[in-house]
């Protein structure tokens, strides 16, 4: 297995010492089959133990290791060294405050995820001694949207969120759509106020960057456009006195 020397330009920020972030360069001997997370782990283990970053599973499941690699928001456990040039710039996810080094503050999006009620809401009592039923066809309507791992790469790619932090943003809106499409859910009308607000779906101008960077192919941009179509249809149904969608 060949090794390759990689120059890692890593953004550093120590809230106790630094006024602003700066770059520090590390020279890392990488195996060709390494991902960027391996190179960062090498720095932590062998060169500089003070480097702070998040990671856990190393297999595209936990969503912790999202970072900007050469300006693109990616999961570093999915980004292979062999696909990158010899000089690689690593920064914390864009559009989020930096807590320390490559660690960002996620409080805002956590609150937004909570806001859209990402769980099954029922208005009636659950069926006795039985599950809520769902056919495969009903599941296929939203299955793609369940793949989100909350890595927040979509928020780092979204210029609307970058410019307006009140925008609910791609992952939370996609999650809301996932529950709206679920036949077991009756909370669509509860979510409407948040989604139809001017910081909801209408703040999205369909740049589409969120879907392009999504490592799990969730396609939040598509979900948001579908909600716009859905919202417009519901609006006219209400105006024309036609009974609305479920709940």
């Amino acid at each position, binding site marked *: 297995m060949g090794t390759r020397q990689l120059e890692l330009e890593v953004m550093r920020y120590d809230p106790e010492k630094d006024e602003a972030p700066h770059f520090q360069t590390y020279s890392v001997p990488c195996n060709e089959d390494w991902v960027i997370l391996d190179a960062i782990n090498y720095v932590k283990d062998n060169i500089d133990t003070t480097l702070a970053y998040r990671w856990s599973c190393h297999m595209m499941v936990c969503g912790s290791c999202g970072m900007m690699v050469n300006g693109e928001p990616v999961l570093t456990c999915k980004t292979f060294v062999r696909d990158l040039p010899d000089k690689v710039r690593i920064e914390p996810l864009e559009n989020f405050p930096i807590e320390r080094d490559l660690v960002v503050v996620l409080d805002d999006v956590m609150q937004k995820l909570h806001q859209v009620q990402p769980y099954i809401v029922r208005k009636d009592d659950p069926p006795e001694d039985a599950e809520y039923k769902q056919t495969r066809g009903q599941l296929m309507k939203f299955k793609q949207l369940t793949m989100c791992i909350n890595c927040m790469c979509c928020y780092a790619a979204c210029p609307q969120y970058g410019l307006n932090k009140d925008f609910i943003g791609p992952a939370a809106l996609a999650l809301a759509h996932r529950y709206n499409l679920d036949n077991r859910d009756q909370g669509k009308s509860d979510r409407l106020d948040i989604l139809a607000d001017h910081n909801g779906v209408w703040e999205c101008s369909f740049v589409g960057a969120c879907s392009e960077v999504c490592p799990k192919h969730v396609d939040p*941009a598509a979900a948001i456009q579908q909600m716009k179509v859905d919202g417009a249809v519901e609006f006219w149904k209400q105006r024309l006195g036609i009974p609305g969608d479920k709940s």
Partner: protein
Amino acid sequence: MSRRPYVREMSKTTWYMRNGRYRVYVLRELSSFLVAFYTFLVIYALSVLAAGSAVQWNSFLASQQGVGMIIFHGLALLYFLFYQTFPWFKLAPKAMPIQVGENKVADSKIIGAHYVAWIVVTAFIFWLAGVI
């Protein structure tokens, strides 16, 4: 230890220069100026027509047939095709996915239907205008 998160503001004036994806988006959005131009052009044409003067109407038609205007209309058409028509048709299956039974209708079929509808509508307008 106290927290002191560092906030990086996105520039409100130069954010779209950050990457190619944003630049393509802004080029798409800039086509709205052409939409505005053609809206005013149609309103102006109607007002000239409503005034009922054949001289004025013919002079308006002549102004649109100069080499400069024909080049402008040609470039505007290309701009619309590459930054509106083709991208939006490509995105149509995302905004309007169709599921039949358990399976989603293939993107290519939804996109193809848009092109067919586009050709039919264009042909109808050409027929209405006496071009074909």
